[in-house]
């Protein structure tokens, strides 16, 4: 198990390294004039050149890359125009916001996690539950409804669902406040009330996909010989299906859930923009609009970290659920 873990961690680190190279290379492709968009009013050639110097854009590419990486692990000095000393993990300085990117992220990541984690619990529970049940009740009205639900959800757009939810609950029924973020530790009730629409929108769309997947998976498993054998031996329905079939059917779904973190991150970008909640996604969209390159670069890296970590966790879970993985 330990060897498996180490191998997995090394592979993850390699992927992150490759992502950082790609992201960095992409930003290096930029023409130097992009600095001009970051320069505030009354910008002149001298000022522009000083900014480039401070951003390190005049250094060789290799030095820029190592400097950036050094900043993440041990911190570095960014120069007076960028707020001076930047402690690890330093992700650079955002000119448009006038603060270190790390500080911005420390503020917005809890918001995004508050959206994604409850939503993911909802969509996994709802999706897998619905899929399993409709497989067990194949051909009934319930099954047909579940199929209809997943087809609708799979063709819906997040911002459309989000907008409809806003129109119904906030503007027409007026039973919910406009979406906003309140810290969970401050007031759990406000936290839930402000984010529940975002959870619902995400959960509806994503659970549709999982309902469909787990239904197909469960149907396949139910047709296996060992499930029939278990039933023939006299195991009750709930034991044979709940213990034998469920465990086999759920493994591939866990993998897909892990691979889907990228999709979920993309989902929060749209959700946050629709509901006007200032999380990681909306920050990234605003950074793009304002040409705030250091924030965009950091967003790419952070998202890649989320994805790689999620994949490692999934592989470990997989190894726990399915012992064969550990041995191979």
């Amino acid at each position, binding site marked *: 198990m330990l060897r498996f873990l180490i191998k997995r961690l090394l592979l993850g680190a390699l992927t992150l390294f490759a992502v950082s190279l790609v992201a960095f290379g992409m930003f290096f492709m930029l023409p130097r*004039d992009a600095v001009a968009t970051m320069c505030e009013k009354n910008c002149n050639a001298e000022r522009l050149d000083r900014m480039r110097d401070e951003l390190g854009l005049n250094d060789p590419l290799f030095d820029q890359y190592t400097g950036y990486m050094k900043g993440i692990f041990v911190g570095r000095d960014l120069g007076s125009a960028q707020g001076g000393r930047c402690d690890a993990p330093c992700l650079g300085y955002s000119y448009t916001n006038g603060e270190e990117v790390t500080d911005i992220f420390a503020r917005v990541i809890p918001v995004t996690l508050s959206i994604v984690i409850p939503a993911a619990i909802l969509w996994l529970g709802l999706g897998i539950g619905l899929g399993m049940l409709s497989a067990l009740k194949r051909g009934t009205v319930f099954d047909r409804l579940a199929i209809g639900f997943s087809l609708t959800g799979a063709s819906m757009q997040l911002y459309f669902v989000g907008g409809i939810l806003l129109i119904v609950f906030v503007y027409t029924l007026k039973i919910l406040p406009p979406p906003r973020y309140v810290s969970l530790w401050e007031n759990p009730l406000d936290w839930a009330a402000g984010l529940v629409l975002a959870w619902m929108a995400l959960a509806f769309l994503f659970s549709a996909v999982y309902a469909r997947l787990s239904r197909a998976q469960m149907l396949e498993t139910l047709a296996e010989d060992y499930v029939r054998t278990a039933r023939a031996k006299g195991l009750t329905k709930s034991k044979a299906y709940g213990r034998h079939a469920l465990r086999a059917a759920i493994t591939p779904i866990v993998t897909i859930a892990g691979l889907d973190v*990228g999709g979920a991150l993309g989902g929060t*970008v749209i959700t946050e923009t629709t509901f006007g909640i200032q999380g990681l996604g909306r920050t990234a969209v605003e950074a793009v609009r304002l040409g705030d390159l250091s924030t965009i670069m950091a967003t790419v890296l952070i998202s890649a970290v989320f994805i790689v970590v999620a994949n490692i966790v999934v592989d470990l879970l997989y190894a726990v659920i399915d012992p064969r993985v550990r041995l191979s």
Partner: protein
Amino acid sequence: MSMLQIETDPAGMDPTAVPVAPERGMVGRSPGRLAWERLRRNRTAMVSGWIMLFLVVLGVSAPLVELLYGIGPYEQFQDRIANNSLPLGYLGGISGDHWFGLEPKLGRDIFIRLVYGLRTSLLIATSAAVITTAIGIVLGIVAGYLGGWIDAVISWVIDFALALPFLIFALAVMPTVTARFYGPRDEIDVPFRIAVMILLFAMFGWTGTARLVRGQVISLREREFVEAARASGAGLGHILFRQLLPNLWAPILVTFSLAVPGYITGEAALSFLGIGIVEPTPDFGVMISNSLDYMDGDPMYLIIPGFVIFLLVLTFNLFGDGLRDALDPKSSR
């Protein structure tokens, strides 16, 4: 040679799956014909196919629709907009002249903008699907047939591309690429934006098809007809594209038809976030993004474009599902 020709019947997707032996008095039916008949019996697929076709024709013939409808996508009807910038009349200003009502503030006709939006969306989605499918086929077939280090490299690239978050990457690519070609204050041309979006989809979208084709090729490459072709001295190109490819059309067709709605969604999402199509070009994503400001006063402005894009994606998805069922009757949904 005649044996080879039977094996590589261009319409056949799996030569062993459907044995068609001409019986007494019966006309032999090709696998393609059988699939078509199965598709025609599937009512859901046929209905959604017709709606899909209608929407596509509507989008493609947008200028003609404009001529018949008599209103252009950029015309403003300020006299029908109230002081609070909402359209006059009920349901967002729906009337005999303006079938789907008017946009708040600018007072442009929603119906004709949707028709043009359909055209933009379909143009981007189908070109992206064609390009990604082509790249996916070539790389998948090469990786699957050649194996070895070429397969290892292509597979690693696929895994790597899957590890990148598409939307976040798109957010990063759009400004960097436009900054490369345009100054900070320049107006960015619409064709350029469309090209960058298609490029983005192409960069990320080919992996699915490549994986699928690779898997299929691995199971096909040891078959007798490939061996026979190799034995009779066929070149690599001939084996890949004349022998193997004709056996892959069915799964490729299915992934293609399911890729299109995916790109329709993707295009609308990018435009919604302000990194795809921008005002004043008519587009679903832009319309919905604008409508969020008027949700309280004019909900129809959100509901109509939202419903049209839902219908478009749903019919494409249902038709794609039907196509899969028809081409591969063994698969269960």
